[in-house]
């Protein structure tokens, strides 16, 4: 029985928005030095709960206690000053300012209004060293890698003595090496007494780093348990209410056809001599660490940052994809990894978003709902992809991440492309929606399309691909057949040739 007060207690928190109860009588606690994982589908209430903790929202009822004392946060700044720091998924460093300036943003050490640069630099160095980093405090934040930027964000939190750290999907943009380093840091910080709330969809990480796990569903706490009692299967069942076994789609029934996409010697600023085949009916997964060039590959194939030399064929036609538009004309579609910035037309309806590409190629003076862009056809396609929305007329920004992703897929399918490139297809998508998107990809492949899937999510690569291409430093480093393990992939990705069975180019 605990005699000391918990570092953080959220008791009977309820928050209602018009039309929905986002958080329903949730109680949640975190002891000093505990790493408490928080899981749940998108819409389960995690982000609302965290926003309440961070002072963005005020709860309708319930209370928050820090070390036994009740607190009320009227503004995010108040929460930060009380020792609660949230590390968001979207990093918010100022790229043109130095690391030190970023760490001490808003709390610059000053004398009579003049900033004391020396104290700032020394302070930043001290904080970074504590985090095990040797980043120079005078380097511009924009020069750092994503992993380093995250360290700076954490340093920022400790600059105001954070005792409770909330990390929202911290490894989402990190590769395996950096993610492991981050998890080590999390463990070290917790041993120093920092309470950490770790929000993640990545089950393997939770198994490695958490002390306790809480699962939210539909705004309510479904389970809170120590790690020993929370194996992945039980967690997933609690989150989605069904078994994990159907998560990844079954293997294809037919052998793949001829090559639908053929790249020979594709090179540009970021890529070296790429040779790649994707056959009709096949899902080729592309894996690699950050900087390996896998996202660059997706962009090159789709014409966004085109190849500067080499050849590309789609079907058996030579293609010069110099722009996104020409790639689409050649029969290719690409689902961007950043749907907010590169995919969604937020204020337009679901239907308008689904028909965007068709409208890009239709006669400009024709009616927007002329055949084949009729409402009936569009709606049918959206329903086939299981898009859930109150009405297809409503603005797409109101949909969940998984639904938005499906609408974008509908957009690309409208022109019936031969080759589809999926970049990070389930980023920001909850567990249930992930499974359905994998199924969609499998169906598309089974119906004769060639799918290229570029992803940082290794379990996804392993589970969905028929063949895996591993990239390193801008080139293809190796290829694996389905049945490979994550270790196999990582071995090639980091140039650690311990497995003689791996095929290497």
């Amino acid at each position, binding site marked *: 029985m605990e005699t000391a007060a918990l570092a953080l207690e959220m008791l009977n928190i309820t928050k209602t928005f018009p039309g*929905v109860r986002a958080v329903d009588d949730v109680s949640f606690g975190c002891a000093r030095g505990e790493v408490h994982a928080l899981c749940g589908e998108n819409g389960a209430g995690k982000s609302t709960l965290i926003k309440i903790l961070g002072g963005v929202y005020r709860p309708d009822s319930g209370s928050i206690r820090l070390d036994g004392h009740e607190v009320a946060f009227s503004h995010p700044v108040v929460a930060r000053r009380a020792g609660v720091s949230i590390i968001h998924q979207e990093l918010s460093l100022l790229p043109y300012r130095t690391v030190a300036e970023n760490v001490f943003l808003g709390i610059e050490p000053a004398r009579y209004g003049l900033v004391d640069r020396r104290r700032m630099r020394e302070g930043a160095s001290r904080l970074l060293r504590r985090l095990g980093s040797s980043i120079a405090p005078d380097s511009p934040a924009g020069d750092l890698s994503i992993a380093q930027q995250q360290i700076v964000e954490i340093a920022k939190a400790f600059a105001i003595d954070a005792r409770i750290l909330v990390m929202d999907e911290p490894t989402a943009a990190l590769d395996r090496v950096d993610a492991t380093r981050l998890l080590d840091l999390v463990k070290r910080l917790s041993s120093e007494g920092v309470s950490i709330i770790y929000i993640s969809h990545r089950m393997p990480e939770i198994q490695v780093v958490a002390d306790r796990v809480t699962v939210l569903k539909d705004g309510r706490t479904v389970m809170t348990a120590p790690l020993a009692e929370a194996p992945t299967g039980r967690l997933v069942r609690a989150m989605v209410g069904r078994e994990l076994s159907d998560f990844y789609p079954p293997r294809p029934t037919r052998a793949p056809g001829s090559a639908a996409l053929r790249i020979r010697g594709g090179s540009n600023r970021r890529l070296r001599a790429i040779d790649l085949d994707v056959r009709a009916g096949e899902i080729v997964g592309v894996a690699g660490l950050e900087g390996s060039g896998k996202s660059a590959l997706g962009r090159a194939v789709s014409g966004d940052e085109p190849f500067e030399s080499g050849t590309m064929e789609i079907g058996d036609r030579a293609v010069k994809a110099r722009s996104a538009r020409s790639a689409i004309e050649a029969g290719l579609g690409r689902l961007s990894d950043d749907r907010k910035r590169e995919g969604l037309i937020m204020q337009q309806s679901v239907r308008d978003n689904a028909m965007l590409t068709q409208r890009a190629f239709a006669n400009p003076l024709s009616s927007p709902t002329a055949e084949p862009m009729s409402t009936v056809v569009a709606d049918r396609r959206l329903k086939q992809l299981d898009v859930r929305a109150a009405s297809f007329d409503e603005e797409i920004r109101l949909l*969940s991440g998984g639904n938005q992703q499906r609408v974008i897929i509908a957009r690309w399918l409208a022109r019936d492309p031969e080759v589809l490139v999926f970049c990070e297809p389930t980023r920001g998508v909850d567990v249930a929606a992930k499974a359905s998107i994998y199924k969609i990809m499998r169906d598309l492949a089974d119906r004769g399309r060639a799918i290229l899937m570029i992803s940082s999510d290794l379990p996804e690569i392993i589970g969905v691909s028929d063949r895996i291409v591993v990239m390193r430093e801008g080139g293809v480093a190796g290829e694996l057949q389905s049945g490979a393990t994550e270790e196999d992939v990582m071995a090639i990705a980091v140039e650690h040739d311990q497995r003689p069975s791996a095929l290497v180019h």
Partner: protein
Amino acid sequence: MTIALKEIGPRSRAVAAVRRINVAVVVFLAFYLAIGLLQPAYLEPAGVMNFLRRAAPLAILASGQLFVLVSGGFDLSVGSLVTLTVIGGSMLTANDPSKTWWAIGALYGIGLVVGLINGAVVAYLRTPSIIATLGTLLSVNGAAMMWSGGSPRGYLPDNFRMFGRFVFHDVPVIKIFPVAIVVLAAVAGLAWWGLHATVFGRRVFAVGDNARAAQLAGVRVEFVRLCVFAISALSAVTAGVMLGGFGGVSVDVGRGLELQAIAACVVGGVQLMGGRGALVGAVAGALTLTALFTLLTLLGWPQPLKETAQGLILIAAVAFGAWRRRRGG
């Protein structure tokens, strides 16, 4: 936001629609009623027709500016283009009515070139439209001065001025029917069709909302930009021809019109960051502004203070829009 909203029933949808457009129309009617109280002649058919005639140039300008605003940009050069049209008109026709049609054609040609330059600078040189069109404003004004040698001739032939001045008399019910209204109806109808009933219009909305996403989806963003600035420029020439019929030829005829057009659109509910707007709003906004200026004139406000009023309206309209967006989310 991943929160599921309750079903949006037909009644609340209707209320939302009513709330959205009708602000400008309601305000316009209120202003017009006030005008009518001060000067009952405005409530007679002839008075209404005359009012619409005088509001036509601004409504036409707003209709063109609408396309640029919805695409996410600003066209600050339309006022100077109006000036160039009027001055150019007088220089090209040289008081010879037989040259009018040719002159108007040439002016449309010039306008098109200016519009395409604007569009090209924004689309290909990636210069923000504020800077690009402010620069065009300078150059076009300078060109107008160069053309007229600094002292513009005061005459335009009558058939040129017809578009602004001419009214059909002895028309049943409405008594007079100005040609300007025909032009306005044609322009507004064309603009409505172009923005709301074509694939092109949808592309404009998409580009204004998220140009990058539109580009990756295959939309030729550069071409859309060229078109919207061309449309805006052509509307400016049309408004210029009409304004040439209203008054004399001077270097000030177009001054401030770009801001009036933007103000009209904003009052009518057009979103300044692009992606949202409606033709009805632009026209209603123009009518509202014209009504306001008429009201101020009737109340005896001196001419320069109308600029002040315009500034206030512009700010108030945008602030109101921002407030509504914050409230409604």
